[in-house]
């Protein structure tokens, strides 16, 4: 009854115009509340971002919208149809692209498209025009015979999009289409979605990347199953106007400055941006404290436009403090040489395919060194050779002066490694995981007991000792993984996409530790998909088509990409610029 009253109160024209109407939707799985009394409208001709960290309820909502899940309470209509009662009509009115590649990897691009057309009840032979149009739209024309499983991440997403568009749906639902897609392919996806909304389609783009949210016309911001914000992203960022600042050109001291800034009472959030430090003030706070800090560091303080991410962090009550308990306890790293990691002419071939081609660089002690590149550019192959997971076909790699080929054991005992998805033993308890990583690095007796006790205290794991890693909150899980990889005090730490699938608050906490470690002289090697994380790096190595195409500080890379159109390019712009110009050079040479 209440819902009906609410319906009557809204102007009928608005309801008619809405592509999706969500009213008081609740969904729980056992005891887990995935969605709590969610109400929102999604409109035609608009790109609506469904934004929130992992576990916020984005996929659950998506699946309810497509009629794959039935809500426990509330109702949803899509293109005028009730998703529960008119389930069959929903499948016609909506196109859904699931998070994981929902296509048949053993079928070719064309076979997948024909299959989806038939599943939609269309005659695949009579729709040659539509196929040509979709192939042209997705630029997959040259690859129709390739097996779907052999496509790159970006191409898979485009094929998924083509299949979802097959029946010309009124509402297109894309579940995290940007995951595992490099910035170049992502730009392509944006272009296609733009074209679709221009035609009047309602497109829902779910994402955990907050920078993607800014590009949407309207945003539904979810956190822990609750709707925190509904409206144009600019509206949310506008609330933060005048609270974002940047300490310009702080240089070598930027990590210390960030730590100090984050420990200030008036600062709610801060990140490193190249040589600068970007801070966000708490609501109602004055800039006096941060100005004082800028004066002390003798750098300029400039106001900068607010970002969507600032607003999100602010909604959640600000980021963590700046001091890393972990780094505090660490004694400074002493190394014989100033070079912590180096490689020369590093090459890896898999049969005919060259994954890494003659890559050489040196990483200084205490440096945060980033490896970036599009999917399949060879960054993870290079990374794996540097930490001893792959043997190079040619060339050599050294870690702390040890040759990874000859003194494998010696080199490995000097490096720490943390993989994406945390790589913890799910069957073992937290305590047992800690015991294991201490043991496998040969720690014995008192040292072992002290280190484990220290890690438990530093990372506040005391109350979780007998729990399994999977039952830990995300933040604690990440702390445990970090604790395990740092148990043996390695002077070099390898991080392979350490923050993928992690919410911004947890990411901030993670980087606080990493910054602290770097200040103590620990060398950090990191690969990442988050362009804003590349800003934390001292230097970034950019790989494309197996070759090193650029190696410089983030600021220098951005400067090189600056032109009339983009006077102040972002890291993402720089990335796209570098990859595209490297491709052009390759083509010119060939």
């Amino acid at each position, binding site marked *: 009854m209440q819902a009906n009253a609410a319906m009557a109160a809204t102007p009928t024209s608005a309801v008619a115009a809405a592509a999706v109407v969500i009213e008081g939707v609740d969904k729980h799985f056992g005891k887990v509340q995935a969605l709590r009394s969610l109400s929102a409208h999604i409109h035609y001709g608009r790109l609506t971002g469904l934004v929130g960290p992992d576990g916020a309820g984005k996929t659950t909502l998506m699946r309810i919208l497509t009629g794959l899940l039935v809500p426990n309470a509330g109702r949803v209509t899509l293109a005028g149809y009730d998703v529960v009662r008119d389930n069959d009509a929903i499948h016609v009115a909506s196109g859904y692209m699931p998070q994981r590649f929902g296509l048949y990897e053993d079928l070719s691009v064309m076979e997948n498209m024909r299959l989806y057309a038939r599943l939609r009840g269309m005659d695949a032979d009579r729709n040659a025009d539509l196929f040509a149009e979709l192939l042209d739209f997705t630029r997959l024309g040259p690859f129709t015979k390739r097996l779907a499983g052999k496509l790159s991440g970006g191409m898979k997403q485009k094929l998924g999009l083509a299949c979802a568009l097959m029946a010309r749906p009124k509402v297109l639902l894309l579940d995290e289409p940007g995951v595992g897609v490099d910035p170049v392919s992502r730009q392509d996806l944006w272009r296609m979605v733009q074209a679709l909304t221009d035609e009047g389609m309602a497109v829902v783009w779910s994402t955990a990347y907050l920078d993607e949210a800014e590009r949407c016309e309207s945003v539904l911001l979810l956190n822990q199953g609750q709707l925190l914000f509904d409206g144009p992203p600019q509206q949310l960022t506008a609330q933060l106007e005048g609270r974002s600042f940047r300490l310009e050109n702080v240089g070598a001291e930027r990590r210390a400055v960030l730590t100090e800034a984050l420990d200030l009472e008036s600062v709610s959030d801060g990140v490193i941006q190249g040589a600068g430090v970007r801070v966000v003030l708490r609501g109602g706070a004055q800039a006096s404290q941060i100005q004082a800090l800028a004066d002390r560091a003798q750098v300029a303080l400039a106001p900068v436009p607010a970002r969507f991410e600032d607003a999100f962090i602010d909604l959640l009550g600000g980021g963590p403090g700046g001091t890393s308990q972990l780094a505090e306890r660490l004694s400074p790293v002493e190394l014989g040489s100033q070079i912590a990691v180096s490689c020369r002419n590093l090459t890896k071939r898999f049969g005919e395919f060259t994954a890494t081609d003659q890559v050489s660089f040196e990483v200084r002690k205490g440096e945060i060194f980033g490896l970036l590149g599009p999917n399949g550019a060879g960054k993870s192959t290079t990374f794996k050779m540097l*930490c*001893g*997971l*792959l*043997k190079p076909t040619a060339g050599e790699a050294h870690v702390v002066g040890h040759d990874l080929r000859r*003194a494998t*054991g*010696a080199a*490995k*005992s000097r*490096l720490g*490694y943390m*993989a*994406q*998805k*945390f*790589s*913890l*033993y*799910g*069957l*073992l308890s937290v305590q*047992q995981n800690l*015991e*294991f*990583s*201490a*043991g*496998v*690095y*040969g*720690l*014995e007796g008192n040292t072992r007991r002290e280190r484990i006790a220290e890690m438990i205290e530093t990372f506040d794991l005391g109350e979780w000792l007998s729990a399994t890693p999977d039952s830990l909150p995300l933040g604690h899980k990440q702390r445990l993984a970090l604790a*395990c*990889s740092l148990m043996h005090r390695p002077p070099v730490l*390898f991080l392979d996409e350490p923050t993928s699938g992690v919410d911004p608050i947890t990411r901030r906490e993670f980087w606080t530790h990493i910054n602290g470690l770097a200040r103590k002289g620990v060398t950090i090697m990191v690969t990442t998909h988050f362009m804003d994380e590349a800003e934390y790096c001292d230097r970034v190595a950019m790989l494309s088509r197996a070759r090193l195409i650029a190696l410089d500080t983030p600021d220098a890379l951005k400067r090189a990409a600056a032109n009339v159109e983009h006077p102040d390019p972002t890291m993402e712009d720089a990335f796209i610029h570098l990859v595209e110009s490297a491709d052009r050079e390759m083509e010119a040479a060939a």
Partner: protein
Amino acid sequence: MLTSAFSFTRLRAQFIKEVLSVLRDPRSRMVVFVPPILQLLVFAFAATLEVRNVDIAVYNQDAGRWSHELVQRLDSARFITHVRHVDSQWQLHEMIDRGEVIAALAIPVDFSRTIAAGDSGRAQVLVDGRRSNSGQITVAYLSTIAADVGAEVVPDAQAPTPVVVRHWFNPNLVYRWFIVPGLTGILALFSALLITSLSIARERELGTFDQLLVSPTSTPEIIISKSLPALAIGTLLGLFMISAGVFLFGIPFTGSFVLLLASLVLFILSVVGIGLMISAVSMTQQQAILGAFAIGVPAVLMSGFATPVENMPIVLQWMAQAIPLTHFLIIVEGSFLKAMPPGDVLASLWPLAVIALATLTMATVFVRGRLQ
């Protein structure tokens, strides 16, 4: 430096991790505990295959002494609850058809006369072919009783399966005597194979295998730490089945226990090597389980467990020599029934040692190969 090629601290940490993983993983736990319990239940059930509490119909056309004697004995036979007397052949058929009796005996008019004349009396027996197993056993019992009165029972063609009477010998007992020792080998084979083939694949799914490979631990340490839990569990299962054979099923154990234990350990080690090879090439646990069965089932079929190796084509015979189970079966069956002399045991023991060495070396190569 803590980077020697071999360290007991690292080995201990990995061993504890492996044991905990096996015991805490529901899939591994199932592999470890379910098959032996299932086997025991199956064989406890098989023991009740003996026929009890059945009804028999009798159509006695003979009024003589011997037919009377036979019916008397049937009446007092413990496996028969009721003897149902009928007056016509037609009624016999009826009762079988309706399933009221499992077998029916038709005693001809000249039954007593034949026996009195010194010949063997003949009585016709009809068996319910729908219960062929129990029927066969019933016929066997009946013929034993008939033999006591100097008669023969002749099965009627109504039974769809040919009923062999003369070669009857308690089938359950022989079957078990043969099969329980063999099961020792098969149980140990599958548990060791599954535990080890899951071990690396599980870590690969979790992503912890990379974590292990970037640590200073060496390949032999990984192999040893992954072998030990499987070795312990496989040996315990083997011993469990051996003691079940001796104490529960009363199979005479006549060989050397020490030699049997030694060959059990070598046998499991060779299987562990195969399991680790499967695991090293599997990307997921699902692939590993499939791989284990793809290797395990043909190995059992070719080992001589079901069909004698000597009856196979010569090429398969050679291949059978490479299967550890072939050699272990010879030892375990010999130890139970034949009082196999140590010399003969050793003749089958050394091939096991060679196979174990070969598979474990290959497993090390395979695991190291993951680093390429």
